[in-house]
């Protein structure tokens, strides 16, 4: 028995040694031993080999249905007017504006196209991969192809669940506890420059440890555009981990709802050391109150930049959806940031209808790694003659363009709500103006 205890103790000591000295301390100082870099390189090689092997296997087994990563249909372009014009091109020009029985072809085709595949609902589920990345969870119709592939997959499962996962959990726990303890301690100090500096240090080190806890490799581009004090940082939203990714490189004032439980404890201790903006649930409904509080924060130019995700919900990182204009009415300079996850190493999207927070974090910690590219875009301000909604749209396009994401005007709220009737009425209005508006526009109200 004693031998067993002795061995267990030794293992435990070795474990703590590895975690603290090889991972935690370097992380706190922003250094890296380069192990993660090597790991990623090896992974890339393995995944490339796996892709080739699968493609070869697919050619040899033609009966297996091939996945369709780009969707099942290619939608026809063309506006309603163009299409109607084409449908009627055979009729005499005098009757061109009138109703024709063939008009229904346009509506039925567009309708069926949307039924089969639409632009919006696919953003609320994980991105499909063109080729399997050896994670069980992304296995769609990738059948047994070869023994070597299966062996590698098995080794991968072992490495991820038995080696990486305990390591990451330990780091995450250390990181979060340090955050709570550190910020509480700093909170006891009187207001001073020293306090701010210490608070920034505590926050940075904690987020760095947490990032290591996810094996996150982040590449920051254009650091000269980093958000400054008194500004507002906006970014596209894919997962709650976005916060960790961004806070690894700078300090932000977070905005959000106060939760209960563990999240609440963390939030309350964070706000002791530096002014984050947490709202009660009831306050969130009152847009005016929210805006005025944020405005007050920005006006005090010495406070940390606010971090806001204007989409309002998690989108799957293939597109950017409508930015809610509330954040753009506050004033101040906007610093747009694009966050793009590399889907080969793990699916970062949080599908809140499918997984709760804990389940999601566990999935994150058992992926290969999280590889992210963060681009800081040049600051933007609202221009004359532009209203908040147009400004929001402009910022959104800039973010989408930088990350190679699709720029959609649809509201992320469609994840949970139904489409407003006004959209249908708009289509009806368009059609009516083609049919009737040309003839007698004075009777049409």
């Amino acid at each position, binding site marked *: 028995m004693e031998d067993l205890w002795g061995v267990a103790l030794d293992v435990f000591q070795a474990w703590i040694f590895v975690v603290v000295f090889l991972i935690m301390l370097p992380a706190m100082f922003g250094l890296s031993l380069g192990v993660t870099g090597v790991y990623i390189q090896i992974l890339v090689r393995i995944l490339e080999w796996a892709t080739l092997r699968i493609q070869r296997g697919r050619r040899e087994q033609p009966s297996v*249905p*091939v*996945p*369709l990563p*780009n*969707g*099942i*249909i*290619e939608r*026809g372009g063309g506006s309603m007017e163009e*299409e109607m014009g*084409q*449908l009627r091109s*055979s*009729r005499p020009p005098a009757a061109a504006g*009138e*109703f*024709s*029985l*063939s*008009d*229904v*072809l*346009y*509506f*039925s*085709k567009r309708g*069926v*196209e949307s*039924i*089969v*595949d639409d632009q919006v*609902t*696919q953003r609320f*589920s*994980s991105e*499909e991969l063109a080729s399997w990345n050896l994670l069980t*969870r*992304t*296995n*769609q*119709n990738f059948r047994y192809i070869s023994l070597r592939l299966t062996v590698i997959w098995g080794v991968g499962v072992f490495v991820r669940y038995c080696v990486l996962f305990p390591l990451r959990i330990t780091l995450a726990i250390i990181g979060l506890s340090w955050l709570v303890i550190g910020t509480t301690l700093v909170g006891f100090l009187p207001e001073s420059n020293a306090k701010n500096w210490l608070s920034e240090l505590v926050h940075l080190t904690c987020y760095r440890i947490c990032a290591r806890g996810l094996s996150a490799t982040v590449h920051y581009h254009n650091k000269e555009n980093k958000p400054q004090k008194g500004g507002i940082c906006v970014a596209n939203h894919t997962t709650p981990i976005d916060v960790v990714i961004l806070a690894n490189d700078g300090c932000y004032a977070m905005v959000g709802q106060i939760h209960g439980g563990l999240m609440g404890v963390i939030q309350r201790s964070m706000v002791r050391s530096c002014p984050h903006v947490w709202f009660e649930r009831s306050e969130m409904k009152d847009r005016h109150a929210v805006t005025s509080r944020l405005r007050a924060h920005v006006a005090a130019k010495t406070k940390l930049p606010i971090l806001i995700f204007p989409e309002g919900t998690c989108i799957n990182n293939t597109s950017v959806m409508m930015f809610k204009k509330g954040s753009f009415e506050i004033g101040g300079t906007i610093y747009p940031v694009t966050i793009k996850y590399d889907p080969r190493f793990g*699916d970062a999207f949080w*599908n809140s209808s499918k997984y709760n927070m804990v389940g999601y974090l566990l999935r994150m910690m058992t992926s290969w790694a999280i590889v992210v590219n963060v681009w800081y875009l040049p600051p933007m301000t609202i221009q004359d003659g532009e209203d908040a909604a147009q400004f929001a749209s402009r910022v959104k396009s800039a973010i989408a363009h930088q990350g190679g994401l699709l720029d959609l005007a649809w509201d992320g709220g469609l994840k949970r709500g139904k489409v407003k009737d006004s959209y*249908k*009425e708009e289509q*009806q*209005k368009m*059609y*009516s*103006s083609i*049919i*009737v508006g040309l003839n007698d526009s004075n*009777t*049409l109200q």
Partner: protein
Amino acid sequence: MGSSSSSMTNIPDAQQLIQETGFSAAHILRLYERFEFLDKDKRGELRQETVDFASFVRILAHFRPTDTSRTRDGAQQEPANSSTGKLKSAFQLYDQDRDGKISRAELLQVLRAMMGIQVTEEQLHSIAERAIQEADLDRDDAISFDEFRQSLEKVNVDHKMSIRFLK
């Protein structure tokens, strides 16, 4: 559509559907996932005029591009995506009670759906009147399938009613 793995064995009558409609196995799989996604109540059917998966696929089959290469012998049934098949499908959008004729009431119903509250009753009636007068050749105050086909003879139905399905 997300990371779900279904196999062909889950899908009822998959082989028969493939043969009947001409969709590939990958398409059927994909459509089945989409059907499951849309079928939020898990009733195995979609919305008001309930459609089960097989009917769903058959309706969609009308929108496949016309197979110009397929030669047809006389005994084989008219494929869904031929010109005639497409025209029939379009005709049925108007002819809701399936009596083979588009009556004035049915035409009004479709027009109302397309234009909503944007036009008045009188405008609607005058549009319907004009459409029937133009198309109704045998003066029975309704549009039969042949009259419908004639009215659309200059329209490239194959092109206008085809959706490009990716391989």
